[in-house]
């Protein structure tokens, strides 16, 4: 007797522990995702708010006015400063320049004026001081690392004419995120009077003013309107500016929050499933115990109440731990993301009421519901019948089968309908609508789960049966004996794998398409570009590269927009290269006509532009205004170019004789020259130029891929958590099943199943469940991926469906390995139980 009591208590601790961990993990994931989202949004707000802090009135240029072309003038600034009620005012502007690095290469940089009113600065001093003379500068702290600069160092800036200007770094500052600081260039501040030497076109885009004490923002606006006039300006109070800035960010960060919210939702579903499943099994196992309680006189309400009370207490405590765990997860993720981007980002952990509510909603509510449903069922049965009942109840599945199938069919129809709807849409709408449709289809499969388990299990079971014989046969039987339980256990994993493979397929397809396009469009071995966007490559560089013995062919690429009437359907951005390059180094997909031997005065237009302008092969494209007006003959329609059309260099120079230079130079090596040798030879030329950077098609592809991979990595990490929880669910189910089947295992051992075979049996069962979830998930994910690719793909932006077989193989393998790990504990426990002790178990 004592033995059974002890065994009971021990089994119960294990069960309580397992269900608590299930709740904790679920809560941790949900709250972690929410805290992370809130933290990132908060960070963005803080960053952006720096542009509007301290500002009482902001003036920007709007509409036609005297300064709409040139930007705010010094005269206007002086007028503002003299206006009554103004304590201080400053101009915001920037100048693009090139920063010479130690290696002699130029990096894009932008210099802004140091605001004379300290409150109006958008940046905070980190180290040293702000410049006090025209030869001093303070740089963004980030530039210290990215451009390898140090305090006290002498730096050189190149102006547009390659003139050199030296400055000494006297300080560093930290700035908020704004449209400019988010760009890739290095930032520095100079005294306002130092700016004009870098460019004669310093364009002040905003004028900010601080009010004197006692002057309201509205009064100041009124005063300013009087002194500067209203024509051509837009006045905003600081308050309005802040509201507008924040609106901008929440739109921006909104996308990210939505993404995180979608993950939180998935986390919620997965967590709910694991918790529900655990409790269903627990209460099912306690059916006899509950029945016994009723036999000795407990009322149905008392029994039900005791189960609920236990669930509430357990749910509450596990939720508290889970909530803290979630905050930890969020801190960890922020640190990881921070270390990726190289910023020393602050870890923010805002815990909003929503997060707390969600945590306890998941932890307590779902736990109670999960406990209540099976407990109700258990207490509804007559106590004596329950005492006699078999623990397995496979008939139940058959009973609810029809209702289930009807529901699934409805979900399927709805999903198919929504997908069909989404297929007809474009871009974002297509993504969202089609995506929702696929999620409905996923819900259908989850609903159908118990019905699918049988056949899928039979198919999957063939391999282990052939490999391992009887233990595998028994395992397959066990995996299929309670389809509802197996379905619920595998559903969590299935959802996770579906999402991962869906995202992976879509991303890979987009990636493959992009690199195929790169191949198609850039048949060159490599491309030389300018490291600074505003400073194009020059003819002498082209000549030098062409003179390199290893080089076979070169082709320059230039882009320009001929003048046109505002809103003309013919306003176009054209790209130009040499005539020989067409059909050779420049090889877009030709829709109609031919581009080979494209002559001066002819144009090959993109299919997008063809649609917009209504032009076709044989048509005429008028370009330019007045003296430079010219009619171009459309000889081809092509796909896969960024511009509206392709023309020859001569055509370009006809519009603008002072062509500033080339955006890029394509280089094709002579036959037999390796890329390495060729690159080395060309690098000798480019190294001599401060701005020329060599960039090959392969590297472009690699760049594209790393970008996509970074996003994928983030998604994999989040979903990875969901998958871990799902795998924990498998371990949970298995452990509970092992406890439930103690006598059965003992019987098998008595009949001659060795310990090793018993463990093997459990491992195979675990692997079967995991592969079931993973396999269905993969099929769904790839299928949904195909649907999404079809929906996103359009004539102008065709995406080729591509399945990343390697990654899918890795996923399947990971599922198998993880399942083996998940089975390790329960298998050990099962192996340890002695035959006789097992037989004694009730």
């Amino acid at each position, binding site marked *: 007797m004592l033995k059974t009591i002890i065994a009971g208590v021990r089994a119960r601790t294990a069960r309580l522990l397992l269900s608590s961990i299930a709740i904790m993990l679920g809560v941790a994931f949900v709250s972690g995702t929410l805290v992370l989202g809130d933290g990132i949004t908060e960070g963005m707000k803080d960053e952006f708010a720096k542009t509007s802090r301290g500002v009482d009135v902001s003036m920007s240029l709007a509409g036609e006015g005297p300064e709409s072309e040139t930007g705010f003038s010094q005269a206007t600034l002086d007028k503002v400063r003299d206006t009554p009620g103004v304590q201080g005012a400053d101009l915001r502007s920037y100048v693009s320049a090139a920063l010479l690095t130690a290696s002699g290469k130029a990096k894009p940089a932008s210099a802004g004026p140091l605001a004379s009113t300290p409150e109006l600065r958008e940046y905070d001093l980190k180290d040293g001081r702000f410049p006090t003379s025209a030869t001093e500068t303070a740089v963004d702290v980030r530039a210290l690392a990215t451009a390898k600069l140090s305090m006290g160092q002498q730096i050189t800036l190149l102006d547009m004419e390659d003139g050199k200007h030296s400055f000494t770094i006297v300080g560093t500052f930290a700035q908020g995120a704004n449209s400019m600081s988010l760009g890739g260039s290095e930032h520095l501040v100079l005294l306002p009077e130092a700016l004009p030497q870098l460019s004669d076109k310093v364009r002040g885009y905003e004028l900010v003013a601080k009010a004197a004490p006692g002057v309201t923002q509205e009064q100041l606006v009124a005063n300013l309107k009087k002194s500067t006039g209203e024509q051509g300006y837009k006045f905003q109070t600081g308050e309005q500016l802040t509201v507008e800035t924040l609106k901008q960010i929440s739109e921006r960060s909104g996308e990210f929050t939505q993404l995180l919210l979608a993950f939180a939702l998935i986390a919620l579903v997965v967590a709910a499933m694991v918790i529900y499943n655990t409790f269903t099994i627990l209460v099912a196992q306690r059916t006899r115990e509950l029945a016994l309680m009723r036999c000795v006189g407990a009322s149905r309400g008392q029994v039900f109440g005791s189960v609920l009370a236990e669930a509430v207490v357990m749910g509450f405590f596990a939720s508290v731990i889970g909530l803290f765990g979630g905050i930890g997860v969020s801190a960890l993720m922020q640190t990881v993301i921070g270390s990726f981007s190289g910023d020393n980002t602050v870890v923010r952990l805002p815990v909003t009421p929503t997060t707390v509510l969600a945590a306890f909603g998941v932890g307590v509510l779902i736990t109670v519901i999960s406990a209540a449903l099976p407990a109700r069922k258990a207490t509804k049965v007559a106590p004596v019948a329950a005492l006699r009942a*078999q623990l*397995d109840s496979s008939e139940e599945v058959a009973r609810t089968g029809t209702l289930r199938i009807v529901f699934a069919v409805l979900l399927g129809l709805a999903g198919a309908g929504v997908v069909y709807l989404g297929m007809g849409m474009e871009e974002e709408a297509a993504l969202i609508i089609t995506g929702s449709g696929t999620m409905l289809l996923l819900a259908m499969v989850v609903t159908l789960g118990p019905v699918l388990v049988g056949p899928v299990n039979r198919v999957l079971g063939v391999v282990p049966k052939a490999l391992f*014989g*009887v233990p595998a*046969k*028994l395992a397959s*039987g*066990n995996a*299929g*004996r309670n389809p509802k339980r197996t379905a619920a256990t595998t559903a969590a994993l299935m959802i996770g794998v579906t999402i991962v493979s869906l995202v992976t397929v879509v991303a890979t397809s987009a990636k493959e398409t992009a690199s195929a396009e790169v191949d198609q469009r850039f048949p060159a071995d490599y491309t030389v570009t300018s490291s600074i966007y505003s400073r194009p490559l020059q003819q002498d560089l082209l000549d030098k590269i062409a003179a390199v013995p290893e080089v076979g062919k070169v082709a320059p690429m230039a882009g320009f927009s001929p003048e046109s009437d505002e809103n003309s359907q013919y306003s176009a951005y054209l790209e130009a290269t040499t005539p020989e390059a067409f059909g050779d180094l420049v090889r877009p997909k030709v829709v109609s006509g031919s581009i080979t031997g494209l002559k001066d005065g002819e144009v090959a237009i993109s299919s997008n532009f063809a649609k917009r302008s209504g032009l076709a092969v044989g048509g005429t494209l008028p370009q330019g205004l007045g003296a430079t007006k010219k009619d171009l003959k459309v000889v081809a329609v092509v796909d896969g170019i960024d511009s509206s059309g392709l023309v020859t260099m001569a055509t370009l120079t006809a519009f603008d004789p002072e062509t500033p230079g080339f955006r890029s130079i394509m280089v094709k090596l002579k036959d037999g020259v390796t890329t390495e040798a060729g690159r080395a030879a060309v690098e000798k030329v480019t190294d001599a130029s401060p701005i020329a950077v060599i960039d090959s098609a392969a590297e472009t592809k690699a760049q594209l891929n790393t970008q996509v991979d970074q996003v994928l990595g983030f998604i994999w990490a989040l979903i990875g958590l969901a998958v871990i929880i799902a795998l924990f669910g498998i371990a949970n189910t298995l452990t509970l099943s092992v406890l439930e089947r103690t*006598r*059965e295992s003992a*019987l*098998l*051992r*008595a*009949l*001659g*199943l*060795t*310990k*090793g*075979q018993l463990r093997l049996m459990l491992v195979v069962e675990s692997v079967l469940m995991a592969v079931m979830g993973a396999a269905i998930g993969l099929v769904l994910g790839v299928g949904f991926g195909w649907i999404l690719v079809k929906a996103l793909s359009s004539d102008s932006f065709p995406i080729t469906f591509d399945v990343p077989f390697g990654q899918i193989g890795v996923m399947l393998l990971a599922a198998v390995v993880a399942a083996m790990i998940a089975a390790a504990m329960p298998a050990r426990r099962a192996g340890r139980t*002695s*035959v*006789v002790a097992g*037989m004694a178990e009730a």
Partner: protein
Amino acid sequence: MSAVVSETGRVGTQAAVAASSLVKVYGKGDTAVRALGGVSVAFQAGKFTAIMGPSGSGKSTLMHCLAGLDNVDGGSVHIGGTEITGLNDKDLTKLRRDRIGFVFQAFNLLPTLSAEANILLGLELAGRKPDKQWFDTIVDVLGLRDRLKHKPSELSGGQQQRVACARALVARPDVVFADEPTGNLDSRSGAEVLDFLRMSVRKLGQTVIMVTHDPVAASYADRVVLLADGHLAGEIQNPTADSVLSALKHLGA
């Protein structure tokens, strides 16, 4: 006692199973329970032996030790010519599946397998092919022919025990151990099972060792071994329900 030892010495002739000075202690220190206090007993091949005794006398413990389901704290057990005390778990498992058949009081069958699969489970674990003729004989004698495809949950208690008997016999084991095989059955189903066990001994030459506390069940056996407080307390040849009952009364007194 020396007689018993010499009996086990004669390999495979007479004694199918023999125990000498078998000791089994549960727990340690003050709470230790000496479930078997030096039991020496031999079971002849081709005979139906019942182990009887009051509740808690050590019947199940003795059977577990004899069948190699539990390790012993002293003495030895031989099955056929093999000493099983001291074998490791793996060899014991092999021995069980090759040479022993089991019928338990309850929970004899795997719920996931059909009756037929349950009957053949032991053979399958051993990787042996069933003897078709022998299988048919057993199934027909036990009247299980039209129940073969059923799952255990679709069988009555008596039918389940008969399936367990079929499983125990289909591999032609050296010995069949049955622990209260009729304990959960009504008297008619119980009688059917006991009839079958006796028939398997008389007609098919099986060796059966059955634990029971029911004098009627014991009367089916050729010989009854009485156990009290973990010690042998006599035996009865060709028992009847009455002779067993009175022997038990003596034990209790």
